[in-house]
């Protein structure tokens, strides 16, 4: 039924529902599971209107943020690798606007289905930038499944 299932997750409770659903379908269909994490490009604007610091300080901050994001993604991937060891998932990490990056990854990997978590009433801690249907749907190259 499916050859490739693309799972977009950043590890929040809503995304963990998607992880479970994608894993279930991968087991049932024998499809390859591809786990996608997106580092939000809006982080590059987070120095905002800081003008007092030297460029050295701003560069240090930029490297530090990069390191923190990489560490967060690494922790997430380690957990998924452990939880879904039987599926031997592949991992992909990109930088960009979440909706554009997800659609681009689905196109490049020729995914048969994209699985994401449902919008939760209370947003989980982290960078606040929810993917909206209005932004994502027009870009989709494959069917989208939202795990409840």
């Amino acid at each position, binding site marked *: 039924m499916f050859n490739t299932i693309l799972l977009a997750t950043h590890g929040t409770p809503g995304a963990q529902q998607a992880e479970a659903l994608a894993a279930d379908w991968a087991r049932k269909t024998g499809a390859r599971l591809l786990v996608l994490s997106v580092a939000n490009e*809006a*982080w590059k*604007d*987070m*120095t*905002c*209107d*800081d*003008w*007092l*610091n*030297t460029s*050295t*300080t*701003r560069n*240090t*901050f930029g490297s*530090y*943020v990069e390191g*923190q*994001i990489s560490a*967060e993604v690494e922790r997430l991937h380690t957990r998924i690798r452990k939880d879904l060891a039987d599926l031997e998932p592949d991992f992909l990490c990109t930088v960009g606007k979440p909706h554009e990056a997800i659609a681009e990854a689905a196109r490049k990997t020729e995914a048969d289905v994209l699985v994401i978590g449902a919008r939760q009433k209370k947003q989980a*801690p*982290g*960078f*606040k*930038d929810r993917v909206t249907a209005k932004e994502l749907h027009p870009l989709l190259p494959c069917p989208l499944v939202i795990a409840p």
Partner: protein
Amino acid sequence: MASSDLGRPSNVPVWILSGLLLLYGALVASGALTPMLKALHVHKQVDLMEILGFTFGGIGILTAMLRSTRMNKPMTNLDTFVLETIPGILFIVMLAMGIRWIAEPIVVMMSKSLVPVLGFKIHKVLNLNYVVLGILVGIIITNSWGIPKFAASGVKTARFVLKMGVILLGARYSFAELAKLGMVSVWMIGFFVLGTVFFVLFLGKVFKQPKSMTGVLSAGMGVCGVSATVACAPVVKARCSEMAYTIGTILGFGILCMFAFPTIGKIVGMNATQFGAWAGTGILNSAQVAAACLAFNAVDIKTLKVGEIFNITRVLFLPIIVLVLASWYGKAAGQKLSFKEVVIDKFPIFIIGFLLLFAMSSFGLFSPPGHYKGKYLDFSYNQRTEVTPEELVVLKNAKLEGLTPEEQAAYNDLVKQHQIAGNFEDRDNKDMFDATARKRMAGLESILAREKGKEITISSDVKSAVKHAVKQVHKKSKTIVTLTDAMVWFFAYGLIGLGMQITRKSIAQAGGWPLVMGAISGVTKATLSFIVVMYFVKDVVLK
């Protein structure tokens, strides 16, 4: 002129911008725009309009020509630092000109026409002068269409240009001013910076929040907003969400303060020193301190002078706070910071430039002997030479009796032109323009002399306004006047560019415990500093 395959933005916008600037300069020079400029009350700035239009238009054409020869070629330093940067500079300059000479006057006119409906002048309440409008335009552009691709590199110069503005401001302080203001700012900043840092750390303990979060928040709330957050986040090992929440909270609070502080300051009747001290202490984000000071008074730079001393004091406190937080956090993490990481990397080099300009000015490098103590008279059209809007109302409503025809004519012209000057039509003939202005100044001085001799009676408000008008044309140095004009434009340019760095997504990050703790500490700091300023900070006589 298509975009090259090397990712260079298109040259078309550069040709268009340059053409528009040249066209504007030509239309102003020909007098075709004079009726419109008179209607907008900006006609006195025509000389500057021509200079800026032709200069930047010319630079733009030259850049566009050079860029077209460089398309499809590998990028060199000349491309990166000059040819790809100038288009963004032209973009901001054009915005600054449009805001100052078109948008601001239109906003003022609309605001006045809405008085019968609203009952108040909305531009006064929201302090919508060219500085605030500039920041707002910057924020709107970046959050709607986005910064145009051709301007992206040039917009990054805003930080550098704002620092240049602060450096030029150094020429406007005397030893006495810097000593007095420096003393007040060191006391206030010392108390409130350290007080807020420890207060936030205390709140973190009360609310049982992680050290990394309270550490980064305490720096942001206590020292200089986003700048301090950027400097301290790696030191206290803040997590991504903690940094995002802190920056969002500080930005949101800063923008609210930018609008609220000047209005509150005016309502309670703060003087320039008091407002600069309050804004410099109570507003978290350093960019918004400069904006609030210019929103309070964009014509007279006294408020900015005070606010920037407080800003500079804050940034000088930053390495100290980094050290405090490093040792507070480092005990647990076992980390050690080097002298280079704390002091050298964090030291704001532009302050050396500020002190250099201050020293040069103090040793008289910009003021030849003949220019000292008001021997040099400047009648040229300049907003800073005008009386204040409040004084203008007093002068318009006053009914003076017993004036000679010369005195009456001088007085009438002061009401008409808002400053002592020659006739607008004679502005190209400097001798005639200055001779008329001197005659008018003599007329006004005669009014003051006769009032002193009790020959005529005028109210103290009118006397004060006339005295101010006379004082405004007495300048110490032509160089200082030029430096100040450049500085005001640098600030306007820098703040438009910084407005473009404020994204909706950054502000939307405000939330979590940083929002709760930030709101408590921010409001406490603003309230306490307001009380201290109102009761303990006296006016400092500024030149």
